């Protein structure tokens, strides 16, 4: 039984209910137990740190202080949302790196009878735990309905791999954790170069035109590469790409129809759960015909791509993988 302290974050109970639902669906088969932090509060998402440092870090650190009170058996706090994960990780990191900041934050926490010593907790994103603690072998063994034939663009977003304080990710520009996980589900993962390009974050509120351009690039590239849908690990990315896809089409006069799902929804499907239990259908850009490829034993509508002719081209060098390690070559 792998036990973790769980920081859900605001969106998991509202705009990203589907992420929460699908996550809960895969906990039991993977023998995962999430102990929610008592009386957690909002992490300030991407905005608050930009406005006022000390209160923002105090707000975040309060969650860490609360978590230290529930540490029986585990010191790892996990958050499914990339923004929450990054804020918690930043708070822990900068309270250590800048003792003056740490002191001020603890001064603020003391008002509520709380205290946090940096380094006591380990903060890791949900996908980090699934890939490296649970492991791809276990996940593969739990797949009862392989999603063969489903072409997915893996979209990690920009807040996970950068800044990578604790060197948790295989690469800061082209990480492969999500690719490997989706392949374990039987998915055909397309080579998606913009996997860590930014989705605009809160730019949709401040400068919609910029946000639309960023969203267009992501959706257009996935579409051009023949992806049926995009899989993401962050509620903010999902919302920006899904909710604003219509306005983006309107703004550019395009009519992309790219469904945006959470990777946990795909895992649920692969584990044999019904779409309804995974919040599939709640997305604004419907994934019904995308999932038609695997949803029901409906013959695939499109002509399957012709088998690739064994081209005589020059051999490709081996792909870079994490365990090869950067130091190994230096």
């Amino acid at each position, binding site marked *: 039984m792998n036990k973790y302290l769980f920081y859900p974050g605001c969106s998991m109970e509202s705009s990203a209910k589907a992420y929460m639902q699908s996550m809960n669906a895969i906990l039991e088969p993977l023998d995962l137990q999430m102990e929610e932090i008592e009386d957690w509060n909002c992490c300030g998402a991407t905005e608050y740190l930009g406005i006022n440092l000390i209160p923002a870090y105090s707000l975040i650190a309060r969650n860490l202080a609360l978590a230290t009170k529930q540490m029986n058996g585990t010191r790892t706090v996990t958050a499914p949302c990339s923004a929450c994960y990054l804020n918690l990780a930043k708070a822990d990191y900068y309270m250590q790196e800048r003792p003056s900041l740490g002191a001020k934050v603890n001064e603020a926490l003391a008002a509520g009878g709380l205290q946090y010593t940096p380094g006591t907790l380990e903060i890791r994103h949900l996908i980090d735990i699934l890939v490296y603690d649970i492991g791809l072998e276990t996940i593969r063994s739990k797949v009862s309905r392989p999603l063969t034939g489903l072409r997915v663009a893996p979209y990690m977003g920009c807040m996970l791999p950068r800044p990578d304080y604790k060197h948790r990710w295989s690469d800061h*520009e082209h990480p492969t954790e999500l690719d490997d996980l989706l392949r374990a589900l039987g998915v055909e993962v397309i080579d998606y*170069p913009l996997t860590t390009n930014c989705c605009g974050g809160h730019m949709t509120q401040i400068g919609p035109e910029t946000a639309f351009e960023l969203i267009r690039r992501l959706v257009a590239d996935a579409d051009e590469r023949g992806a049926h849908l995009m899989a993401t690990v962050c509620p903010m990315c999902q919302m920006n790409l899904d909710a604003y896809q219509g306005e983006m089409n309107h703004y550019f006069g395009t009519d992309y129809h790219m469904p945006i799902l959470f990777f946990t929804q795909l895992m649920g499907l692969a584990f044999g759960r019904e779409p309804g239990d995974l919040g599939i259908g709640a997305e604004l850009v419907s994934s019904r015909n995308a999932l038609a490829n695997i949803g029901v034993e409906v013959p695939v509508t499109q002509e399957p791509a012709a088998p690739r002719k064994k081209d005589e*081209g020059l051999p490709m060098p081996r792909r*870079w993988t994490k365990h090869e390690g950067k130091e190994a070559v230096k």
Partner: protein
Amino acid sequence: MSEKKQERVGVYVCHCGSNIAGVVDVFDVASWAEENLKHQGVVIAREYKFMCSSLGQELIEKDIKELGLTRVVVAACSPHLHEKTFRTAAKNAGLNPYLVELASIREQVSWVHTDKAVATKKSKAVVAGAVSRVIENVPLEELKVPINPNTLVVGGGIAGIQAALEIANAGFHVYLVEREPSIGGHMAQFDKTFPTLDCSACILTPRMVEAGTHPNITLMTWSEVVNVSGYVGSFNVTVKKKARFVNEELCTGCGICEEKCPKKVIDEVFEAGLGYRKAVYTPFAQAVPKYPVMDRENCTYFIKGTCKACEKFCPTGAIDFKQEDQLINIEVGNIILATGYDLFDARRVSNYGYGRLPNVFTSLEFERLSNAAGPTNGNIVMRDGKTTPKSVGIIHCVGSRDKNFNNYCSVICCMQGLKFAHLVHERTGATVYNFYIDMRTAYKAYDEFYQRVLEEGTLFVRGKVAEVTNAARNEHERGKLIIQVEDTLAGKQRRIPVDMVILSSGLQPRADSKEVGKLFGISCSTDGWFTEKHPKLDPVATMTEGIYIAGCSQGPKDIPSSVAQGAAASARVLDKILQREVALEPIKASVNQEMCSGCRICNGLCPFNAITFHEDLMVTEINPALCQGCGTCVAACPAGAISGTGFSDQQIMAQIDGLLLRNLEPVGV
């Protein structure tokens, strides 16, 4: 304790112009020494403007003769600079050179302290320490060891070949050991060389043939050094000659075996992963020696025990599957390491996409592409092996001058980038962009080559490329590699779509350079390049006598410099050989056999195997020839039975007391 004969010590305090006198009151130090160290034997203490000048030395020589000095202390610069000078001066005056002691009051006092009074007081203590120590010095004679005229050159690249040829032409025998099946090194892989655009093979292969056929050179390819012991003048080296499974006497190099061999494998080494070779192969046509080798991992016979096509078709029956690796012991006097470099692995710069985007090539891959003997017969084509690119982007400084990878500049990637630009122009007429941060074209005819490439219409963009991506944002970029760069001269971000990208990668020390260094007893810099004895004045020698380095193993450099260093190293070896013998520092350890109880605690401490134990006598003995003088056993012997010359216990204990001003008469400082 028996009453020691009173020594007659001369103390000389150097002004070193104002280097010392500017901070240390040299007059006070001299008079203090004469006054306070009289009871230790100081009979004269002088100060002089430049002790290392001939006049300064004559001062010492005159005093030794006239005042009958038996010890000399020179308070000046670091012993690493002028210890030899003052030892020779003493020798000229008939005093054993090892009775001279240098007290460093420049590098370790005047240059590093500002307070004049404190610096003067410290100088007095340093002089007192030196005087107390020099009294305990004993006359020593240098240990003469014969020089074995044979030389070992490790690494058959252009630097190694040059070194081997110079020594062989001088009439001395050379073992040239090369890890790959053929000598030639990286240079054999290039098409053209800058700045003259000579065809690399045309200028290299004659030297290879000359080395291959030279009566004084024993070529040992497909071989590696596995053990080195001994010292300058008599190194004992064990070379592992890997089995070629081809009998070199019978083989004529006709190549039928390679032709008939059914097993095709990607050639990661010579073709840089861009071309194929057979399981039995010679790396390239002009290989020296011409005998092929069998790749044990991929040959079907060794995997399944079947096939043996090569054996069937070999006209002279030269194939011999029973061949074994051989361990060959050779005796040499000097060793030159010319082991070359590894190319920086461009996959580590993930935002340039090498290894993910098909049409991103490294410099070595492009060398094979543009080489007529390469996998595409010299046609510059894209990864599909067919289409000629219409636009090519060449990125400089890949992995170099970058704190995430290698801080240093790899010296050759700029010129290499220019050469590629020229070749692409000449062969395909494509538009060429070169992305650089500084154009480094420093040597003869280099900048003229840069002007020429400019005039040929290459588009130069000054800026560090941020990313190479295939995510097109508009029709204009579709299907292309887009180079995202900040053009610092134009002052704006640019996205330049091209068909092909060439990464002018930097050079890196060999992956095993630290182990090889340890094998030969030399150290490496933190990056991994072999450490030279002195970066400016002694670049081809190392701290270890008799071991020399040349070419890129010492640091990134171009072919002319590698050749020059190869020749320089050979000159250093020749001067050792012609001296017939070399004088070793008489700093050795020796065991007092009566006192040694045979406890064997010292036996495990000597990495040079100078310490041997005699089972019969139950005592330990130290071979002075093998002893490097580190003194670890002297300090370790529980019975105090091991003494060391040059740095004896008495000398060091006396110096400690002197430094703490314990040996003074009641007159304080």
